[in-house]
């Protein structure tokens, strides 16, 4: 069954078109990597999926999932780097969308936060302060928070930025595990084209003029993919 249906989506702001006529469909359990050079509207498209920016034309439709049931892993901000909060507080804040207007968390949400902390193997960090963690640990914490917000769809915006190769590999493996074992649909913006084709089963290549959407194995055969991978120049 289709989870997300995007048809001829065009987006922009301040009279400037950022996303031009993009169409794609995702099914439950897909792992989509959005690739492309800087300034081709990857982040803008993600804002559209999250419902933070309305498309100028076209439509983004969801099946069986509400807009506030999406788990999101944004890029880290400077504010967070020295934020005095412990891991449990951060993860628990992912349950906020379940509370509506109710002011405090119930036992159910706290249990959910603990469950996701265990799922990501960060039990021993639970009481630690977020600002004392390494970059890789911080990403795991934010991933646990995102899982508190969703059961179906995870959006990740360049999750491995600033991580060393070992942590990068671990984080990719973890995301892949969530996708395979829990059946969570993943949409990831990535600059890392090699990992994108390794883990993603679908690729959306955004480009100012033409793009690509399709299965990864078809993408590997295209010229734009070969150029991104640095194999053939000017193919």
């Amino acid at each position, binding site marked *: 069954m289709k989870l997300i249906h995007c048809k001829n989506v065009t987006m922009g702001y301040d009279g400037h078109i950022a996303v031009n006529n993009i169409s794609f469909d995702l099914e439950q359990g897909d792992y989509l990597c959005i690739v492309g050079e800087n300034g081709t509207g990857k982040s803008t498209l993600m804002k559209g999926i*999250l*419902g*933070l920016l309305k498309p100028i034309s076209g439509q983004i439709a969801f099946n069986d999932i509400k*807009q*506030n049931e*999406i*788990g*999101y892993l*944004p890029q880290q*901000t400077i*504010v*967070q780097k020295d*934020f*005095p*909060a*412990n891991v449990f*507080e*951060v993860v628990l*804040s*992912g349950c*906020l*969308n379940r*509370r509506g207007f109710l*002011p*405090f*968390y119930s036992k159910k949400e706290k249990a959910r936060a603990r469950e996701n902390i265990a799922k990501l193997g960060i039990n021993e960090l639970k009481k*630690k*302060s977020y*600002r*004392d963690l390494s970059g890789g640990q911080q990403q795991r914490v*934010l991933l646990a*928070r*995102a899982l508190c*917000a969703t059961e179906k769809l995870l*959006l990740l915006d360049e999750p491995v930025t600033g991580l060393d190769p070992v942590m990068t590999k671990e984080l990719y493996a973890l995301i892949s595990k969530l996708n395979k074992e829990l059946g969570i649909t993943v949409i990831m913006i990535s600059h890392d084209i090699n990992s994108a084709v390794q883990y993603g089963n679908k690729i959306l290549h955004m480009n100012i003029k033409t793009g690509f959407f399709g299965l990864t194995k078809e993408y590997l055969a295209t010229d734009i993919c070969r150029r991104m991978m640095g194999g053939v120049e000017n193919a």
Partner: protein
Amino acid sequence: MPDLLRELFSYAFIIRALVVGTMVALCAALLGISLVLKRYSMIGEGLSHVGFGALALAMTLNMAPLKVSIPIVAVAAFLLLRISESSKIKGDAAIALISSSSLAIGVIIVSLTTGMNTDVCNYMFGSILAMSKSDVYLSVAVSAVVLILYILFYNKIFAVTFDESFAKATGTNAGRYNMLIALLTALTIVIGMRMMGAMLISSLIIFPALTSMRLCRSFKSVVICSALLSVVCFFIGIVISFSFSIPAGASVVAVNLAAFLIFYLTALILKKILEVSA
């Protein structure tokens, strides 16, 4: 010391100052955490200067100071927040512009009417004599509203402070909570301003949060520590202000500075000890 305290509590104006001040110190400390973490500290400074202009205006028009300044400062809070969020204008520069302009307008109004007298000095640097009986009722009511709203929205305020994009993406109206924080800050500043002084009230917002962040590692502990610290520093500050006849605002800020230095040094020493033992 007990004699001094007994003497202190025998004056009605001191009791009034303590009641209002404790409430304001509590509100300011809580709101300050979000403002400091979100890099909005300048908003507090800007609002207090706007408040000075509003007070000068109220004095000239012979109107109740709180009734004039609350709406003016609330509108200013709305504008300052918009400016800080807009990427087109450089936020901090625009805030500096607004705050110095309102200070200038206030000073002009004052010089043209009453002249620079002790009242004006009190407005700028604070006085424990500032609170009248009706001010106390209004201040306590407003502070109670601020505290209740803060507790009810605590979890949402945490989420919006920690990560605005995530909060927005999962359906929390981050803009609304930023506005709530700014408006509550405006109210707190207006109430606390005459006792603490327009020049010094913003320290009540910034110091407790910064001080407790030296040592506290979770958000909840920062909140509790800031609240306690703020109230304790305020009380010690008032006692000093009373015993040495110095402006209340100045002595409260000095006590806060001392607390900050103590926490800062303790954090340094703890770090060294941990390094040695590790």
